[in-house]
């Protein structure tokens, strides 16, 4: 067991920021799982999150979606409880449990934390995946995929990831495809759970009005039969090289969803903190303080939704640099040119000292706002463990933000952003030919306005 008090107290440019206390107690359970507990006396809600290393990467070829369904159907029954009994216990206590491809998120109101932990433990160790529930839930996902097949918003995102990641699993939809789900059986889920949902690959985080030692004792007991499993074997990822690749998903709609970007960074990239600051200057600053929102939304009125970032998707594997805008077909060329012009500008010129200061003040000052919800704290605990963040991260990260210089921003913009080697996807009322023209700039002929509904 190790215990630490993390405090964020880096001073802003103006004045001292109120202190943020996030105590974390770390245990290694005898089943092999890591347990992190963050006590918060008086908290009205307790959040529990579980992360399993492996996830969609372990989907058998041709049976994509196995990891997703294994997590999503976790709460459909155990050896001793039906799905209805689980729902009855949980819902009347204001609780919920939701599984995904590599995680489980659970919450409960008030002080019924033991109930939540006991149920969750049972689900992790001995889910039963009843045949009837499997059929029903698989059909629900199939029905959703059938509807999403024609949705340019969803298909635009899928297409962009496919262009960036190629055949790597990161380029595939987590829920699988209509064809792959059609091949899945209940036995596939049972086998996947046995092999992949094992204790040695698990991190559990609990945040709420709890005592760490009591949480440990309860989970130690309830997870004693959870198989440790074998260590995860990973292979170095292979992604397509940087380069310009453009695709469309034509659909009769009012707006075009435009994605522009390329492979991004890992969370442990040494430039991470500097790129967070750059993102806030370029495309994710709150309100319209960032350049891309200011230019494309505020000045040109091209869109309601527009943003760009590289840090947000950084993980164990590289995320993406992604700029997005939802705009009218006649504005696509202007938007694409606007994105690239703003990226080039941060590469060629030093940003204003005032812009840098505003971004730094925001990042330092907003730290306390990010930790109000129990679920956010639990999510942070998991992230810190997965990415092996330093124990003093909540103190050192704001300091790193403050130490970023104008030259640092230009350097990382040049090193990590590639405006002339981007994947571009346009989903909506636009043809491939029209997108190719738009990529040549706004002076090329615009798509005919009659396409607008």
């Amino acid at each position, binding site marked *: 067991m190790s215990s630490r008090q993390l405090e964020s107290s880096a001073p802003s440019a*103006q004045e001292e920021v109120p202190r943020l206390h996030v105590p974390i107690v770390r245990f290694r359970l005898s089943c092999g799982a890591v347990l992190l507990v963050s006590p918060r006396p008086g908290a009205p809600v307790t959040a529990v999150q579980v992360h399993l290393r492996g996830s969609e990467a372990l989907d058998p070829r041709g049976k994509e979606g196995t990891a997703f369904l294994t997590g999503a159907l976790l709460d459909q029954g155990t050896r001793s409880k039906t799905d209805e009994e689980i729902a009855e216990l949980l819902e009347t206590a204001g609780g919920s449990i939701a599984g995904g491809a590599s995680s489980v998120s659970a919450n409960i109101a008030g002080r019924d934390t033991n109930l939540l932990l006991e149920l969750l433990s049972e689900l992790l160790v001995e889910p039963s995946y009843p045949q009837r529930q499997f059929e029903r839930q698989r059909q629900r996902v199939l*029905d959703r995929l059938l509807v999403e097949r024609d949705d340019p918003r969803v298909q635009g995102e899928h297409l962009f990831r496919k262009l960036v990641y190629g055949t790597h699993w990161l380029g595939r939809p987590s829920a699988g495809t209509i064809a792959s789900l059609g091949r899945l059986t209940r036995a596939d889920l049972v086998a996947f759970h046995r092999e992949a949902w094992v204790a040695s690959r698990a991190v559990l985080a609990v945040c709420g009005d709890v005592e760490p030692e009591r949480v440990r004792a309860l989970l130690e007991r309830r997870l004693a039969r959870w198989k440790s499993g074998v260590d995860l074997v990973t292979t170095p990822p292979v992604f397509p090289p940087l380069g310009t690749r453009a695709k469309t998903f034509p659909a009769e709609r009012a707006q075009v969803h435009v994605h522009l970007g390329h492979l991004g960074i890992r969370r442990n990239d040494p430039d991470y903190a500097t790129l967070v600051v750059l993102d806030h200057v370029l495309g994710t600053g709150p309100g319209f303080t960032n350049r891309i929102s200011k230019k494309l939304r505020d000045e040109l009125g091209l869109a309601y939704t527009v943003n760009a970032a590289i840090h947000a998707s950084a993980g164990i594997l590289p995320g993406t640099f992604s700029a997005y805008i939802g705009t009218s077909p006649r504005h696509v060329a202007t938007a694409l040119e606007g994105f690239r012009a703003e990226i080039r500008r941060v590469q060629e010129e030093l940003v204003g000292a005032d812009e840098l200061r505003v971004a730094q003040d925001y990042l330092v*000052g907003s730290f306390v706002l990010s930790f109000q*919800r129990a679920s956010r704290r639990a999510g942070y605990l998991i992230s810190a463990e997965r990415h092996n963040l330093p124990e003093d991260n909540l103190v050192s990260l704001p300091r790193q933000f403050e130490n970023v210089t104008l030259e640092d921003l230009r350097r990382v913009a040049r090193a990590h952003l590639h405006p002339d080697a981007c994947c571009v996807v346009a989903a909506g009322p636009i043809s491939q030919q029209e997108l190719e023209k738009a990529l040549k700039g706004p002076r090329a002929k615009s798509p005919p306005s009659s396409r607008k509904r």
Partner: protein
Amino acid sequence: MRPKNTQRLGPATRVALRAGARIEEHSLDNGMRVMVIERHGDPVVAVMLWYRVGSRNEREHEAGVSHFLEHMMFKGSGRFAKGEVDRCTTELGGSNNAFTGYDHTAYWFELASDRWEKAVEIEADRMQSLLLDGTEFDAERAVVLEELSMGDDDPWRALTEAVQAVAFERHPYRRPIIGYTDSLGRLTVEEMRDYHRRFYHPANATLVISGDVTPERALEVARRHFGPIGQGAAYAEVDYFRPKIVAFTGERRLKLAWDDQGKRLCMAWPGTSVGTSDDDVLDVISALLSGGRLSRLHKRLVVDEGLATSINVSNDARVEGGLFWIFAECSAAATPEALEKAIDEELARLAQQRVTAKELARVIAMLEASEAYDEETVSDLAEMVGEYAVDAHWTLAFESIERVKLVTPAQIQECAQRMLGRESRVVGWCLPKKSPSRLKRLDDSQRSSLKKSKARRS
């Protein structure tokens, strides 16, 4: 820790203790209401300013002005030039946003507890000296029109707007909050300025300061910034120009077509006003039908019979009477007729048989437990108190669960019989497109009503 030497407070009109917070209601001399919610768990303060004006208050020709004005509140005032509100908030490490509803408009800031005063300063300035520059007005109109286009691509939004238009006939609740392309296109700066003058004044506003703050400090800051502003015209609830909600009889049906495989159902019944006893009963009925996996509609339609992939029931109470909604997405294998029949059977069961004490207790326990999520952050508290304060009375925020506990099986049955029958409802379907034109899919009776609303958008 409370400061030792503070300005003496006048007596609070009303005080409540709830969710680890002390809630006080005060009034300034100019008629502005100030709600202070003192809770010291996190070093955070939320500031919300609520105006009792929303799309309900708009005249026909100014549809969408409430929401458009909300955008313009960030485009410059006497002491905060365009972009300054966002820049100040960002520099202070805070967040801001705003939203517009049918009955109210609200502005929100969340800041660390040593720097929240700037939010009050900003709100006071844009209440009394909003610039509304013509160039900015035109630029922001383009953004709002893009927002409208974004919504036009959402089949659920198209369906609910079509159903709502039929349900409310002439009352402003029938219009989308964002307005229409042509009403927004014709709106002038002068009309918006007049609208701002009519509704944005202390007597029509409620300031909520929530979090790591003392009532003394909150009142001192509120008085300093809002105290000098003139009272403005008193809020007049009665608007003789506003059409009344007219009860209709008969079932009204409409169909839209969309170019995907979804079969979406939206049913709506005339609902009730916020804070009434029917509001409490409809909350319970909503939870009985779709609250959780064991709820009647979810269990039958989604789990047992596989007729729907999702089901959601909502008691949308508004100031002048809202709607009771059922939304369902039909599964690929099921027919719309089978889904609708099953829903009707469940509604009939509710009207014919009293719910058991056990089922009612389960639903009440679920509603009670879920309250913790509504009160988790100081912004959650500010939003809940503010919304009830402008739409009805703020104490309802903390009384609702006690009121819901008093609901009986007999009341549920009576309410279902009186309000949720087939004799006064709107049923809308959005089905896979089979022909190139959406309007061709409508039958004659619906085409005329939808054409009216479509014409305003084109």
